[in-house]
């Protein structure tokens, strides 16, 4: 600045000499205006003069100030959109990886990866990433947090939260020329203009805060390190229970040892010659489906099939127990319906609703070409038709080949009910027209 231009200024407004180098100890010029309209007008003038590193301060928001300062619309929405879309893709990818690739877990036949199920989590991740981006992006774009601001050290500037209006041009503006800015502010009607000296307080974060952040970060690393260690080492120590609940109790579980008894077993063997309550099954025909021979010897006489015309394939093999051939329960309509109900629940999934060995489980296993799958027996095939009822009962009770026993799930009465229904199914496929009631037969004849 030349002395000549300095004399053009009114003496009382130049409170200190403007430095030749704007970058010296001055960080900008601050001017005060009498009201919002004056501030708005000044902002427009400063904008039109080509300054870009400017800011205006007022106790309340002034509409139109963004345009007056020439502030370009923020890029934040675009950033939020991009990060939100990334969150969307990331959320979908994460669920695909977790559910369909890394740990596939089939739940009631639903697809491992399907869009509807994954929308809620994806939606939440979009919201999470967008909200964080909007919040952190707002701070970042505004240069926050800012530990020191030279304006706050100006005594006069404090009135900005009350009733004062200020405008500021920073010294690092490419067009900055201290003297010209001062003149411009005066032309714009400023009531007070002054240089703002650089802040005396350090502009970097205090060491204590930095240290605290570092410690926090280090502490945050502890849980992942613990998890990493636990996953990659073995340990003999009992696991640590935060909430023991009733995990550890003084009674002994089955198969555990105990010092109390001489044999060291916690589980007690059944006392010889006794029967547990509820285990006394007097009627062998009813409970077993066969009459046990002496000393587990195979019965000498094979039970003759009731129907003499039964095919040879149904002939019982040797060493079979003495299966009962007559129902040991009373055969009634209600027993038949009970049998249908239980058959449809326990048997139909594999054997099919009509007992033809075409249940959904079996069809699915065949469709998937499961190598170990043994197709269930067709219950209405001649070999099964030829079986005595006791053998079918025994099959339900103890299982046969790959089929497991159902004694635990189905009580004996219901097992007999199922046998009865199986007999009905067999009959339904091998009946003659004469055995069918009149009215139903008419329908069949029509269909023919």
């Amino acid at each position: 600045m030349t002395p000549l231009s300095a004399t053009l200024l009114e003496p009382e407004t130049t409170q200190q000499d403007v430095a030749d180098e704007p970058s010296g100890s001055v960080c900008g010029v601050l001017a005060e205006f009498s009201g919002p309209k004056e501030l708005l007008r000044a902002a427009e003038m400063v904008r039109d003069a080509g300054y870009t590193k400017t800011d205006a301060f007022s106790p309340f928001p002034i509409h139109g100030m963004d345009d007056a300062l020439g502030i370009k619309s923020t890029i934040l929405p675009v950033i939020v959109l991009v990060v939100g879309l990334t969150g969307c893709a990331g959320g979908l990818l994460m669920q695909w990886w977790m559910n369909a690739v890394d740990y596939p877990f089939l739940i009631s036949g639903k697809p491992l990866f399907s869009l509807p199920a994954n929308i809620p989590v994806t939606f939440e991740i979009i919201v999470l990433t967008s909200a964080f981006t909007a919040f952190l992006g707002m701070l970042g774009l505004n240069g926050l947090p800012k530990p020191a601001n030279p304006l706050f050290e100006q005594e006069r500037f404090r009135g900005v939260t009350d009733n004062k209006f200020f405008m500021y041009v920073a010294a690092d503006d490419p067009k900055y020329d201290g003297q010209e800015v001062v003149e411009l502010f005066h032309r714009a009607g400023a009531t007070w203009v002054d240089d703002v000296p650089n802040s005396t307080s350090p502009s970097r974060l205090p060491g204590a805060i930095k240290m605290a952040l570092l410690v926090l970060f280090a502490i945050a690393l502890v849980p992942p390190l613990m998890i990493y260690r636990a996953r990659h080492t073995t340990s003999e120590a009992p696991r640590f229970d935060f909430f023991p609940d009733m995990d550890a109790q003084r009674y002994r579980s089955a198969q555990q040892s105990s010092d109390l008894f001489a044999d060291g077993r916690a589980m007690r063997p059944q006392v010889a010659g006794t029967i547990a309550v509820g285990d006394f099954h007097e009627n062998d025909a009813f409970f077993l489906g066969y009459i046990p021979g002496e000393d587990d010897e195979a019965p000498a006489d094979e039970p003759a099939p009731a129907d003499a015309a039964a095919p040879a394939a149904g002939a019982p093999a040797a060493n079979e127990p003495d299966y009962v051939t007559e129902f040991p329960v009373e055969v009634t309509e209600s027993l038949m319906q009970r049998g249908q109900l239980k058959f449809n629940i326990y048997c139909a999934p594999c054997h099919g609703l009509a007992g033809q060995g075409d249940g959904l489980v079996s069809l699915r296993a065949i469709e998937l070409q499961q190598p170990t799958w043994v197709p269930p027996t067709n219950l209405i095939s001649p070999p099964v038709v030829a079986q005595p009822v006791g053998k079918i009962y025994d099959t339900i009770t103890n299982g046969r080949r790959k089929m497991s026993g159902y004694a635990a799930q189905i009580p004996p009465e219901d097992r007999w009910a199922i046998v009865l229904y199986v007999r009905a199914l067999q009959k339904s496929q091998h009946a003659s027209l004469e055995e069918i009631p009149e009215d139903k037969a008419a329908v069949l004849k029509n269909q023919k």
Partner: protein
Amino acid sequence: MTGHHHDISFDPERDRSLRDKGAQYIRASLITGLVCLGLALVIGLIAGGSSQIDGIFESSTAPTALVGVVELVADAENQDVAAYEGRPISEIAAVAEKEFGEELPPQWEEFLHRSTGSGWQRFQASYLVAFTFVVSLSLGGLFFVLIQHVTRAGWSVVVRRIAEIMAATLAPLALLSLPIIIPLLLGGHALFEWNNPQLIETDELIRHKRPYLNPGFFTIRSIIYFGVWAFLGSFLLTRSRAQDKTGDVQLTHSMQSIAPVGLLAFALTVNFFAFDYLMSLAPHWFSAIYGVYYFSGGVVGGLAMMILACLWLQREGVLGDEVTTEHYHDLGKLLFGFNFFWGYIAFSQYLLIWYANIPEETGWFLIRQENGWTAVSLLLLFGHLLIPFLGLISRQSRRNPKSLIFWSCWLLVMHWVDLYWNVLPQFSVSPWPGLVDLLALVGVCGVYVALVLRTASQGAWLPIRDPRLNESLAFHNV
């Protein structure tokens, strides 16, 4: 926008009514509406029920029941299936009935119910779509007025009168429910199968729901719904209009004190209105969120209509520069937000049913996923939710009148498609709308516009002495 506003010049004495043009418009839209409705009825009665067999053996989405029965009939008559191309389904049904009687699968009966309904049924269904469409627009208006008062909003004063007029139109709109209620009271069951005496006899669930789903109680409930809406709508409009003359602040207080209770009554009535008029079309089906679903679509439609009405009134010179870009921007934000809310609710309804996969619930979606209805379902997903979401996400798009007109029209169409998709699959196997649907829509909308303009009559389209008017005139999005 120059960035800063000048002192607002507002002349309360200026005539802000449609003046003589109003009566002209009322006459034109009423005549158009009634003529179209009449045509819809006539065409419906003449051409209805003539669904034809149309390339079902080439299409992979052809109804299996139809394919099966045509094969049966062709077999019985020793003909090739191609010979049945183009023949009315009703004809096949008659042959099948004679040849096979009760042996036909139950799916066939259900298929027939949805494909060969009488023309009267189609007209009723189309009318119901159009009726629930216009009612939802007015409900959107009523909701808008109520939340402005609950939140004591200042920004919206200059556009509030439009919503008030839409809301007050709910009173005369009750008349349009008569073509639905009267046939029901006369024992008709073309629309609501729960009124079919044969089904009441045989269908246990329908019989069980009879204490609620019966014509008498349905009528009583309709009277309650429209009674509550008419009361709220006219209460708010008359108070607001009285303020035009007196400028009495007490009137604002009375509107504000009724608004919370009004919102509660609004929520309950809209919910049950949707249950009764739309959900009970499938009387076996139920969805607790259905009322919210109808409500959310209605708010989208109502806001779209407000934006279009406001721009139209400015073009007509009724409104001047009182309504600025800033107000349109805010209406656009609400439109954007509530449209996403609609998607949120629609998906919430779908997701739970999809996940649970229980037949009694999935049936409703199943018929919307076959025979081409899949395309309409996807049209809603993309056209109602995703495309407008991207279209309205930018600030510029919500501040640009042309863009707002485009998206408002788009969303109004989509809202109609939504209701069409809710109603018609219960009656029609084919997803294509017919002339009857379009005529019924134009007809009911014509009558609706006439009723809205009549409600507005000679009054001002802006609350000229509202205590928060200045705040609204100076409103600025930061």
